[in-house]
């Protein structure tokens, strides 16, 4: 097949751009996938509310007056005691301010700074025995009886808006990912189409000599698709190096290094994604060649 390929290869050098585009798209695609995944992980860690979990927020004002920090701490302790022995509650624990700052650090900044400058809400994680409005009303009235200013937030709106934000970002990542797919598809389609135009006389000759469509398609696989495969491979390698570096140097701030590399969904997805890019290129190449060959009798 070497001789035949020479003809294809001689004319294909102008199409090196496909290699670059497939590398770039694979790289961007992996970046989007990774970012989306980290967002997802972070979101499910921050909002790790099991179905019986509610958040109790100690209000910062009572009768229109600011409550002092010391008094707030008192309320947290008292509320914890009441709740722990409450018949409707399975468990209750205050959310430490440091922990809260840590979890929000990707959005708000370094934990030490957050704790000092931004007033964080006083929260308690409360696990109800059952998630019924009666139980919640009971807990609220018992706290009121102990004159603790508090409200129960089945899903905290403050965290919920963060959840909205991260969901919007995840959606953006998804759109970007889809754009990468589309861009690669159109780039490959355009390249194959122009290659076909350049070589039309040659393809027609193959056809007249009795070449089956598969034979012609194979020539494109061996040239253009091979380049794309190299591109996807190179893009994946570069992405892994970049993301690996990011993980390694930034893991104290953002991600858990160990948890990330042992996450089979993430690793598997990162391996499958370049293959998906290759598959879409393969289908596009095939489609374009078949479409053109069908104009021959």
């Amino acid at each position, binding site marked *: *097949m070497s*001789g*035949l390929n*020479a*003809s294809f290869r*001689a*004319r294909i050098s102008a199409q090196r751009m496909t290699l670059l585009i497939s590398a770039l798209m694979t790289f961007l695609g992996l970046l989007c996938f990774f970012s989306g995944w980290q967002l997802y992980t972070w979101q499910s860690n921050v909002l790790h509310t099991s179905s019986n979990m509610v958040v109790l927020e100690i209000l910062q004002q009572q009768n229109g007056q600011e409550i002092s920090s010391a008094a707030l701490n008192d309320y947290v302790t008292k509320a914890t005691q009441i709740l722990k022995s409450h018949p409707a509650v399975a468990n209750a624990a205050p959310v430490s301010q440091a922990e809260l700052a840590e979890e929000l650090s990707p959005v708000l900044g370094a934990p030490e700074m957050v704790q000092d400058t931004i007033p964080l809400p006083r929260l308690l994680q409360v696990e109800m025995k059952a998630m019924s409005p009666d139980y919640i009303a009971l807990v609220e009235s018992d706290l009121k009886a102990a004159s603790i200013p508090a409200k129960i937030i089945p899903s905290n709106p403050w965290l919920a808006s963060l959840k909205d934000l991260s969901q919007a970002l995840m959606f953006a990542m998804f759109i970007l990912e889809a754009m990468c797919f589309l861009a690669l598809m159109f780039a490959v389609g355009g390249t194959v189409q122009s290659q076909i135009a350049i070589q039309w*006389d*040659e393809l*027609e*000759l*193959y*056809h*007249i*000599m*009795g*070449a*089956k*469509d598969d*034979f012609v398609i194979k020539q494109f696989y061996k040239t253009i698709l091979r380049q794309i495969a190299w591109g996807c491979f190179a893009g994946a390698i570069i992405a892994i190096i970049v993301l690996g570096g990011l993980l390694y140097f930034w893991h104290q701030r953002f991600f858990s290094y160990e948890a990330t590399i042992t996450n089979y969904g993430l690793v598997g997805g990162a391996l499958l994604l370049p293959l998906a890019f290759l598959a879409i290129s393969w289908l596009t190449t095939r489609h374009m060649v078949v479409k053109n060959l069908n104009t021959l*009798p």
Partner: protein
Amino acid sequence: MIEFSHVGLRYGGGPEVLSDISFKLDAGSYHFLSGASGAGKSSLMSLLYCGRKPTRGNISMFGQGIMELNRNQLAVLRQKIGVVFQDFRLLPNLTAFENVALPLRIIGQPDREIKQNVSELLSWVGLGDYMDMYPATLSGGQQQRIAIARAVITRPRLLLADEPTGNLDDEIGFKLMLLFEQLNKMGTTIVVATHNIPMMEHFGHQRLVLEKGHLNMLGKKAA
């Protein structure tokens, strides 16, 4: 073996270039196809190698109606046909050797056999020393011999040659015509389109004459 019945061909919305052509070629026959320039010889050839579908009528090749065949079956049918194009259609990026090897690669012959067959044939047509040259660096006559070698390399059942000796001097032209005679004796059906009257007279095969899109056999209306 080949049968045309009421075949017509037009290009796009133009007038019929070939109209109501009916004829039969027996297996192993040898015909010359003549006619004025623009009479439609190359067009008729393109129908014979299934490079076009007729706009009307039926064509049957090797006992199969071509309209009933699917793409792969048509491809297999084309593999049994060797064509020398009027304009050669050699691939400029391939050497003489690879150009001739092309049909063998398409039918999937192993490299070792290709090497032997192609070298042998190129030597026979007097191009043994030019195997690694590219078409652009060869003379018109040398290119034509490569085109002929490419058409016969697979020992096709049907050989179609459009002006195959136009660029050749009498001696080499005659030698190649003798090759056609030999192939014909071995059973290849041959159609040669030509203007060369002395050559047609010398070999004396039956003539198909195209005139204004109609076909006559030996001056008579074709069957």
